[in-house]
């Protein structure tokens, strides 16, 4: 360990200027939270962290036959520890200190933030391992930059170009996206660990580059090829909650209007037909959030269609949830009165164990549970007003209105969150991740969401003195198959007489 510290001290001396710049940036990051500047600062910090990491590794480059240190009595373990120590002390720790300062400045409770803070720091350290591994495969900043550029191009290809070219877009639901990202992150981190070990222990750069290339290809394949349904299956499989005896039925009591057609539907010749299903025998107080709904439709005349339904709404009350959805079918399949045999798979999550905390209704952020900090604030919404009879161009304008906000420092909790004032309850967005991890990888993962609580209650001017923040956590992730032998789409529509086969726009 003493040799590792000795090398570490040398590296600190060597990189003192770079470290000072990084500390200054971290200090700015701690005190600044103003929109675009903060975002730019985060980007600069990330680039500087990558730069500092690579410089530390390149102080004793691994590839090449002319390296000073290879014929000196360096222990490979000491060298590796020294480099990791520098990353931990000079890159990760300053960010941690900046985060603590930011937490204090924003008034978040430090005690409750400790676990997510430590986790975020560990993730940051792990995220720098692939950077260190790439630096260990290169002998200088030029080679390293070319490597980073190649990886960036590979990432862009894997994320944007290839999926569209091959029509294999895998859009994962927000709820299980964490599995997708974690799998790739885990793979890359493990590969980085192997490469670092191999390079420092054996200095076999060609072999390590082979491992890296293979690992990156496997990671890209994992990212591209695995379908979202796999994420839903894994999430269900990982779930350990008590499984209630749930029944799924068509919900003909729920009437919906005919779903609209998106531009993509129109161009693809698709029409959306509605469906409503009821989930019964839920534990009292539990709420259903649908994660995925796949359907297989068979008409009596032999037509068949498989697809994924989009969920347009769900309501849970008295142990029963009603879920409204729509499935896009080809125009020629559009037949709302013909009986259809529906087989389906429903992936859903039961939220329960409601926790509440009442806080004053003020404009000043007040700490609630689960890392939430809530306040009454102004929301801005951009609008465009047509000139109408006056003629002339449309006019853009911004409308400010009061909304009730909740914000978090380490990402939105995996909870359904509601703000309750009197008898009125209003939910924040239901797009929550089921990630069991207390925080994410983003350097700035703060998140702010709002509800229409104040707008709805706005009529009672000054009538709100306190707000109760209610959270429900995911209790169990479930998968149920169902079979409805004969239903008509018209059963779910408000009034079938007004709907005919929609015409294709000319």
């Amino acid at each position: 360990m003493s040799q590792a510290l000795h090398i570490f001290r040398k590296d600190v001396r060597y990189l003192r200027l770079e470290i000072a710049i990084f500390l200054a940036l971290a200090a700015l990051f701690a005190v600044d939270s103003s929109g675009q500047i903060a975002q730019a600062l985060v980007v600069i910090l990330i680039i500087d962290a990558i730069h500092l990491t690579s410089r530390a590794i390149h102080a004793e480059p691994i590839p090449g036959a002319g390296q000073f240190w290879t014929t000196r009595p360096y222990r490979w373990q000491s060298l590796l520890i020294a480099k990791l120590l520098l990353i931990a002390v000079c890159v990760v720790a300053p960010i941690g200190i900046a985060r603590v300062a930011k937490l204090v400045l924003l008034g978040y409770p430090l005690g409750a933030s400790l676990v997510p803070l430590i986790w975020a720091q560990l993730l940051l350290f792990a995220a720098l391992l692939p950077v260190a591994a790439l630096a260990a495969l290169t002998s200088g900043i030029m080679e390293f930059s070319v490597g980073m550029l190649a990886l960036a191009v590979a990432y862009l290809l894997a994320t944007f170009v290839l999926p569209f070219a091959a029509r294999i877009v895998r859009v994962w639901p927000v709820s299980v996206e964490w599995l997708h990202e974690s799998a790739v992150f885990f793979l890359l981190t493990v590969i980085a660990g192997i490469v670092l070990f191999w390079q420092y222990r054996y200095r076999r750069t060609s072999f390590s580059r082979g491992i890296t290339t293979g690992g990156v290809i496997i990671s890209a394949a994992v990212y591209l090829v695995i379908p979202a349904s796999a994420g839903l299956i894994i999430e269900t499989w990982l779930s350990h909650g008590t499984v209630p005896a749930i029944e799924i039925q068509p919900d003909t009591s729920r009437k919906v209007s005919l779903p609209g057609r998106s531009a993509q539907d129109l161009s693809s010749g698709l029409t959306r037909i509605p469906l409503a299903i009821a989930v019964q025998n839920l534990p009292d107080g539990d709420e259903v959030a649908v994660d995925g709904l796949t359907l297989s439709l068979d008409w009596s005349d032999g037509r068949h269609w498989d697809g994924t339904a989009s969920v347009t709404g769900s309501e849970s009350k008295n142990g029963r949830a009603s879920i409204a959805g729509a499935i896009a079918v080809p125009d020629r399949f559009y037949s709302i009165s013909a009986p259809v045999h529906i087989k389906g798979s429903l992936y859903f999550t039961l939220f329960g164990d409601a926790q509440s905390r009442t806080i004053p209704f003020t404009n000043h952020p007040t700490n609630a549970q689960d890392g939430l900090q809530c306040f009454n604030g102004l929301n801005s919404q951009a609008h465009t007003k047509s000139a109408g009879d006056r003629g002339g161009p449309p006019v853009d304008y911004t409308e400010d209105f009061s909304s009730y906000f909740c914000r978090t420092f380490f990402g939105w909790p995996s909870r359904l969150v509601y703000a309750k004032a009197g008898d009125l309850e209003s939910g924040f967005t239901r797009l929550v991740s089921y990630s069991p991890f207390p925080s994410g990888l983003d350097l700035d993962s703060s998140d702010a969401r709002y509800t229409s609580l104040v707008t709805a209650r706005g009529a009672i001017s000054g009538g709100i003195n306190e707000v109760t923040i209610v959270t429900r956590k995911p209790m169990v992730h479930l998968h149920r198959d169902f079979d409805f032998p004969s239903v008509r789409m018209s059963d779910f529509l408000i009034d079938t007489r007004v709907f005919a086969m929609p015409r294709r726009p000319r």
Partner: protein
Amino acid sequence: MNTIHCQNLSKSFRGVPAVNGLNLEIPAGAIYGLVGPNGAGKTTAIKTLMNIIQPDSGAAHVLGCDSRLLGPEQFARIGYVSENQQLPDWMTVGYLMQYLKPFYPTWDDSRADELIRQFELPPGRQLKHLSRGMWMKASLASSLAYRPQLLVLDEPFSGLDPLVREDLIQGILDSADETTILCSSHDLAEIETLASHIGYMDRGILRFSEEMSNLTSRFREVEVTVEALFTMPPNGQWPVRWLRPEIAPSLVRFVDSGFDPRQTDADIRELFTTVSNVTVNPMPLKSIFVTMARSTSKGNR
């Protein structure tokens, strides 16, 4: 006891052999000069011995350890100086010595100070601001301050002015009592002043390896003056150890690579019937290697 021992060591790059079946023994306490033309494989051989690159086949032992397993324990007893080495240029001379000290249990502060004084190194100057000669001196000083058992020098004199060479040689010689030295060079004059043993490499092959005194005593330039007109005898009659023959009407000159006064005299009397005078001159190392290099290339052609 040999400090370095190689058996059939081979290393190729993209199918081109750089070292081809190297068998080398360097006894403890020797100053071994490894010489040969550029591209002979000297640097590759040294890098293989230092575990900088891996051999394709064969084995080498350095300080009793398999060269492929050389690690911190062995490197604490080895000094390595190479013209191709990249030193941490941002360090000052003083900080370089201060930084290296904890790595070596045998580091001798007084020796380090002495070397800095002897080489007139400026302790406060960064390595990147040193001249090539000073840079090489700093490199050597940082490899001598812990009194290594083995000092490996790869082309240490290349591109240096005579004064710096002299300083370096003096520094190396000062350590010779306690250190086995392997020094590769194509600078024969310096090697001649240094080496107790010598090896000659060409095209990856060690052509010979022996004590310097043996080498210089067995090579002689011989001039034979004859009375009658001399013509080259047919193959088989000209002794194979006689190299680079030059024949004029009444004068024959050659290099005897296995000089033995009696044998050489007997052979001359047998081949040249009318000898009027024989002159035998010792050869400087440079002439020996020029002879060797030319003979080898002619043989290969």
